[in-house]
């Protein structure tokens, strides 16, 4: 199973799936996420993971299907979410069931209800939930708590889980994370930034994403509309003028009703839409970049760098999927110094910890000539890159590395160079201020000596103070 390949990765993946769902649920409820993770080793090799949140809670009727049925989800929409299909939690529950024969335990409470407690198994053959228990249960307030027992290696996953939660607070600065292992509190961090990200809205599809399947579905909903109206109503970036120009170019009658189009017409329309050039930037409202202030604040809070700088590119699109890349370059984050900066990867606010070598972000980082930007083997530079998109092109179902696509490559490379340029300025400024400080020290010492020796010459007991002179000489930025 993807992401559950070995016992240490299984613990990490379970935590990750549950935490992602929790934060998504809290954002849905427009609350500052407060997520608590506890991991307990029941006996060697058997681990119990519990994640609790203050989110919307799951409506009771939905609980069995949401947690114990594969491919049951409401996330198939064109907007940015952490999870893709709401599939991961079921996978984690399934892995737990297979390895320990234990049910997934869910305690949930929506607003205006008291809580409810479930024990669920998955009937694998029929893909149906099996409800072992379903009873009312008091909870502190709305939210969900999920417990999964699984075969896992706690010692080897410990650090990954810690890093994952720490970096989650970087990518979701409005969230708070707690981790307890075997009953003792390991970390509490987050709430670096008080402002909740603006809610994302589902966008209409982009014309470049109009594959035949999508087109057929849209046409079926459009009834007897004219082709022109259909295009304007169904797609983003298709105004009246663009639609007219597009249909003129295709030499199709814009008043033709869409339900009279043949398969061949649709196929022609689809490939024309996908290659049509005259479109503006895609709609960015479906995306939720971390944003300059929040990103800088969270990195400052977690890593305490000496200097940092932010940049972003987009929105643009790949195959009709809108995306934005944003990044921060930081100096002195505690990472070791190297010729190539240390990279932290994020996709839709989720930190990526495995398979970095395969990742497009890593590849682009290595392609940049950092020496050109003043990064030497002695400069500890870290780069944080966040790709957000309505669809992240993951290489494999484990969702750990991003595939190489020319559109994304181009934007990432441009962003890295932009960060490099401002990094260069920052590094120069740093060198200059070190030099200035040294000059000031030397000057301060010399002036004090002059004052002392001249006081001896003048035979006066009080050595005059030079502090004001020094201050005046160094308060202006430029000097000899």
């Amino acid at each position, binding site marked *: 199973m993807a992401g559950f390949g070995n016992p240490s990765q299984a613990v990490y993946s379970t935590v990750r799936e549950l935490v992602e769902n929790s934060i998504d649920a809290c954002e849905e409820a427009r609350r500052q996420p407060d997520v608590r993770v506890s991991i307990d080793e029941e006996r060697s090799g058997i681990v119990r993971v519990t994640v609790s949140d203050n989110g919307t809670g799951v409506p009771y009727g939905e609980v069995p299907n949401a947690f114990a049925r594969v491919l049951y989800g409401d996330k198939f929409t064109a907007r940015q979410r952490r999870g893709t299909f709401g599939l991961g939690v079921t996978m984690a529950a399934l892995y737990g069931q297979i390895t320990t024969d234990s049910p997934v335990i869910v305690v949930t409470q929506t607003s205006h209800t008291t809580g409810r407690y479930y024990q669920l198994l998955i009937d694998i053959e029929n893909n149906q939930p099996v409800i072992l228990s379903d009873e009312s249960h008091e909870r502190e307030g709305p939210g969900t708590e999920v417990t999964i027992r699984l075969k896992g290696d706690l010692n080897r996953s410990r650090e990954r889980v810690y890093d994952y939660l720490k970096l989650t607070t970087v990518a979701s600065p409005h969230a708070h994370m707690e981790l307890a292992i075997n009953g003792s509190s390991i970390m509490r961090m987050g709430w670096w930034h008080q402002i909740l990200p603006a809610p994302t809205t589902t966008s209409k599809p982009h014309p470049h994403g109009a594959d035949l399947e999508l087109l057929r579905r849209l046409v079926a909903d459009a009834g007897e509309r004219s082709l022109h109206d259909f295009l304007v109503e169904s797609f983003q970036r298709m105004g009246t003028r663009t639609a007219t120009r597009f249909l003129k170019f295709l030499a199709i009658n814009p008043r033709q009703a869409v339900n009279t189009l043949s398969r061949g017409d649709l196929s022609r329309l689809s490939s024309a839409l996908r290659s049509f050039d005259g479109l503006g930037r895609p709609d960015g409202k479906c995306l939720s970049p971390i944003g300059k202030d929040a990103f800088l604040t969270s990195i400052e809070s977690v890593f305490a760098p000496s200097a940092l700088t932010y940049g972003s590119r987009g929105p643009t699109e790949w195959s009709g999927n809108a995306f934005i890349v944003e990044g921060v370059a930081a100096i002195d984050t505690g990472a070791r110094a190297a010729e190539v900066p240390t990279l932290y990867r994020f996709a839709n606010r989720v930190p990526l910890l495995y398979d970095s070598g395969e990742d497009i972000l890593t590849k682009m980082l290595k392609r940049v000539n950092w020496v050109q930007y003043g990064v030497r083997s002695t400069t500890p530079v870290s780069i944080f890159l966040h790709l957000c998109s309505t669809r992240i092109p993951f290489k494999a179902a484990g969702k750990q590395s991003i595939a190489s696509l020319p559109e994304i490559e181009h934007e990432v490379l441009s962003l890295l160079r932009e960060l490099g340029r401002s990094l260069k300025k920052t590094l120069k400024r740093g060198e200059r201020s070190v030099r200035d400080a040294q*000059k000031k020290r030397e*000057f301060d010492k010399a*002036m004090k000596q*002059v004052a002392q*020796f*001249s006081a001896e*010459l003048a035979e006066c007991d009080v050595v*005059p103070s030079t502090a004001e*002179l020094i201050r005046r000489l160094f308060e202006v930025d430029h*000097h000899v």
Partner: protein
Amino acid sequence: MSDQSKSLDVLKDIGTAIVQSIDNEEFPTLKFPGRGTENLVYDEKSKRFVLGNTRVTRDSSNLRHIKSFTQLIWVASYAKQLLQAGRTSSLRDLYYSSEAFGVEFTDQAESDRTVNSTPKASLE
């Protein structure tokens, strides 16, 4: 008035002027004899080359001047101590003494030059 007390007066005047300008929050300045070859004059009486009368200004607000400025003031105060004690010192001795006062000379040649400049340094 003996040469010795005249010298002590000159040194005191220099010190007082510098203390005053620091008290007034002004950067003190001094005039040094120029060090260029054009300022070398043959002195018939002593039958040797001495520094001429061309002066350069050393401004203590200038980062490039501050080092020689400090060195000169120190040599002056060292000279004063010698005068008061009625002792003399060798150039070598002076060079090594500077370290005890935290005054840096790159080499003895530099301290020798400073010693030669001192009698001709002035406030104007």
